[in-house]
C-alpha cells in the first residue's frame, strides 16, 4: 500500500511541478517583460532629455557643459555609461575617463566594442535596444547620431553636418533583482504547495483507497485459502468499486465451478475407489487361494516326506534290529569275526539313517520357510529341552554339559520346532566333536537381542575351513576323521533357520582347542508379528 501511495504522490507531484513550473515561468516572463517595458519607457524619456541637453551643448560647442553632463549623468543611478564618438569613431568624451581615446569598431559602426547588437534583441522607439552583454547582463542601449541642424549651421561650425555619435547604456539591475526575488518566491510557493498536496493525497489514499484495496487483498487471500464465494464489502462507484464487483463475480463463479468440480471429483473418486476395491477383493481372493494351495501343498509335501521317511527308515530299522538281535547273541553264539562284519554293516546303516534324517530336515526347513508358525517363544524352554536330549550322550562320552540359561529370557518371535532343530544341530555338533572337556550352553539378554553361546573344548575348526562350515554338504577334514557319519547339512540348516528368524550366527574357533557358536535372535518387540505366507 505504501508503494501505491508513493507512486500516486510521485505522479501527482510531477504533474503539479510541471504545471506550477510552467505557470511560474510564464508568470515570471510576463512580469519581467512588463517591468522591462516600464523601464524602457522611463529610459526613453530620460534618454531624450539627456540627448537634448547633449545636442544643445554640442551645437553651441559648450565643452565644459558637455563634460559636466557626461560625467554627472554617467554616474546616475540606472545609467551604465555615456560615450560620445567623433566622426571617425574615436571616443572623445565618456563617463569612464579611461575610455577616452579608444576607437570604435573597424567598420565604422557607431556601436562600441562590447555593445554589438544581438540578433534577437528587442528594439523600442527605434532607438532603444534591449540586449545582453557578452558577460550575460541585460542592458538597454541607445545610440544616436547628433547632427548639426541647418539653422545651427548658419552660425556655428558651418561645414560639419555630423557633430558626433552619442552612445548611452542603461542597466536593468533592479528588474533583475526583482525577477530573482519573484523566482525564489515561486520556488518556495511550489515546494510548500507540493508538500501540502502530497500530505493530502497520502491521507486520502490511506483513509479512502487503502482500506478498500486491503479488503480486496483480504478477499484474494480468502479465496487462496479455499474460501470460495467470499464477497468483498466495497461499494464505491469508482475503479476500486468496479474491481471489487469484478472480484465478487469471480469469487462466485469460482465457488460454482468448485462445487461442480467437487461433485465431479467425488463421482470420479467413488468410481476409482470402487474399482480399486474390486481389484483388491479380486487379488485378495486370488491370494487366499494361493495361500490355501500353498498350505495344501505344504501339508502334502509334509505327508509325502513323512511317508518317504517312514518307508526308508522302517526297513533300515528292521535290518538294524535284526543285526542287534544277532550281535547280542539272542539267536546263538557269534564269533568275533562275524561280530566285526555285523558291526560294519550296522555302521553303514547308521550313515544312511543320518543322511536320510538330515535330508528330510533340510526339505522340511525349506518348506517351513514358506509356511511358518511364528509365535512368542521362551528360548530358555527350547534350550533346556534341546540340551536335555544330549545329556545321556554327553555322559556316555564323559563330557561335562553346562547349561547356564535363566528360566526367563526376553520373549522372541519364532517357530518353536525350527528353533529346536537349529539348537539341536548346534549342540549336537558340539557334543559330537568333543571327546573330552565341556560343552557349555549359555543365554542372556544382549541389547535388543537374546544371545546364546554354545562353546565346546572339541577338535575345533581350522582357519581355512571356518568360512565354509555353513556351506551345504560341507564337512571339515578333521570332522570326517573323528566322525564318519555325517552329511554336512546340520550347520547350514541351523544358519538358515536363524536367519529366517532375523537372527545372526557367528563362529569362532581354534583348531584343537574348541569352538564357540554365537546366535543372536531379536527380541519380540523388534520384529513385526507375521503369520502364514511371507
Amino acid at each position: 500500500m505504501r508503494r501505491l501511495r508513493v507512486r500516486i504522490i510521485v505522479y501527482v507531484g510531477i504533474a503539479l511541478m510541471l504545471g506550477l513550473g510552467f505557470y511560474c515561468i510564464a508568470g515570471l516572463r510576463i512580469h519581467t517583460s512588463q517591468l522591462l517595458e516600464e523601464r524602457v519607457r522611463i529610459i526613453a524619456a530620460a534618454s531624450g532629455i539627456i540627448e537634448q541637453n547633449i545636442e544643445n551643448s554640442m551645437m553651441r560647442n559648450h565643452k565644459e557643459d558637455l563634460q559636466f553632463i557626461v560625467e554627472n549623468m554617467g554616474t546616475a543611478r540606472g545609467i551604465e555609461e555615456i560615450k560620445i564618438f567623433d566622426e571617425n569613431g574615436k571616443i572623445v568624451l565618456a563617463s569612464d575617463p579611461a575610455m577616452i581615446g579608444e576607437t570604435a569598431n573597424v567598420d565604422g559602426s557607431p556601436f562600441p566594442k562590447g555593445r554589438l547588437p544581438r540578433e534577437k534583441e528587442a528594439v523600442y522607439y527605434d532607438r532603444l535596444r534591449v540586449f545582453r552583454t557578452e558577460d550575460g547582463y541585460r542592458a538597454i542601449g541607445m545610440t544616436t547620431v547628433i547632427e548639426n541642424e541647418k539653422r545651427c549651421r548658419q552660425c556655428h561650425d558651418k561645414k560639419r553636418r555630423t557633430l558626433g555619435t552619442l552612445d548611452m547604456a542603461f542597466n536593468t539591475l533592479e528588474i533583475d533583482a526583482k525577477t530573482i526575488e519573484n523566482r525564489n518566491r515561486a520556488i518556495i510557493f511550489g515546494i510548500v504547495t507540493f508538500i501540502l498536496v502530497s500530505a493530502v493525497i497520502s491521507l486520502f489514499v490511506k483513509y479512502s483507497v487503502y482500506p478498500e484495496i486491503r479488503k480486496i487483498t483480504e478477499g484474494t487471500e480468502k479465496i487462496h485459502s479455499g474460501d470460495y464465494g467470499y464477497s468483498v464489502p466495497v461499494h464505491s462507484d469508482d475503479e476500486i468499486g468496479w474491481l471489487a464487483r469484478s472480484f465478487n463475480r469471480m469469487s462466485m463463479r469460482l465457488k460454482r465451478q468448485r462445487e461442480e468440480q467437487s461433485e465431479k471429483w467425488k463421482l470420479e473418486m467413488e468410481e476409482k475407489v470402487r474399482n480399486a476395491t474390486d481389484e483388491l477383493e479380486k487379488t485378495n481372493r486370488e491370494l487366499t487361494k494361493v495361500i490355501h494351495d500353498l498350505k495344501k501343498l505344504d501339508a502334502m509335501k509334509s505327508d509325502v516326506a513323512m511317508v518317504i521317511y517312514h518307508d526308508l527308515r522302517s526297513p533300515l530299522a528292521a535290518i538294524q534290529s535284526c543285526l542287534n538281535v544277532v550281535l547280542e547273541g539272542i539267536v546263538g553264539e557269534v564269533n568275533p569275526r562275524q561280530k566285526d562284519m555285523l558291526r560294519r554293516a550296522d555302521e553303514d546303516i547308521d550313515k544312511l539313517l543320518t543322511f536320510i534324517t538330515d535330508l528330510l530336515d533340510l526339505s522340511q526347513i525349506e518348506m517351513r520357510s514358506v509356511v511358518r508358525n511364528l509365535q512368542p517363544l521362551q528360548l530358555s524352554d527350547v534350550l533346556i529341552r534341546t540340551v536335555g536330549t544330549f545329556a545321556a550322550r554327553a555322559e556316555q562320552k564323559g563330557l561335562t554339559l553346562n547349561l547356564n540359561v535363566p528360566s526367563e529370557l526376553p520373549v522372541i518371535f519364532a517357530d518353536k520346532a525350527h528353533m529346536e532343530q537349529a539348537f539341536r544341530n548346534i549342540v549336537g555338533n558340539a557334543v559330537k566333536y568333543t571327546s573330552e572337556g565341556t560343552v557349555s550352553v549359555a543365554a542372556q539378554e544382549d541389547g535388543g537381542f537374546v544371545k546364546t553361546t554354545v562353546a565346546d573344548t572339541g577338535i575345533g575348526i581350522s582357519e581355512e575351513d571356518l568360512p565354509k562350515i555353513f556351506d551345504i554338504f560341507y564337512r571339515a577334514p578333521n570332522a570326517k576323521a573323528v566322525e564318519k557319519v555325517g552329511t554336512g547339512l546340520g550347520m547350514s540348516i541351523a544358519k538358515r533357520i536363524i536367519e529366517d528368524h532375523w537372527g545372526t550366527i557367528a563362529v569362532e574357533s581354534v583348531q584343537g582347542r574348541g569352538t564357540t557358536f554365537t546366535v543372536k535372535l531379536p527380541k519380540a518387540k523388534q520384529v513385526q508379528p507375521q503369520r502364514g505366507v511371507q
Partner: protein
Amino acid sequence: MTGEGKKILLVDDDENLVEAMKVTLLSQNYEVITAFDGEDGVKKVKEEKPDLIILDIMMDKKHGYDVCAELKRDPVFSSIPVIILTGVGEHLHEKEWSHHQGLTLDAEDFIEKPIKPTELLGRIKELLS
C-alpha cells in the same frame, strides 16, 4: 524264567522287525502274539488280553496313536501298559503330528528304533514288575 506266563502283543507292519522282537522275547520265554496293522492289533488285544503291548506308530489301516487312544479309553484295556515304537528322532515329528491332531498320548513308554534287545527286555521287565 523271566517271561513265564506273560503275554506280549507286538503290533508293527514290518514283519522282520516283529520277528527280531519276537525272537528276543521268546528267548526270555514270554508268550508272543503278533499283529501287522492297527486294526488287527486292536482285535488281538480284545481277543487275547495281553499283559503288555508294543505298538508301532506309522501303520496301515489304523495309526498307532488311534490304537493307543482307543485302548486307553476302554476301561477294560486301559490298564494294559503300552510301549510305543518310534524311529530315531521320529518322536519329534510324531509329537508334532499329534499336536496338530489335538491328541495326547498316554503310552507308558517309548522305545526308539532300531531295537536293542537288552534295552527292550529291560523296559518290558520294568513295566511288568
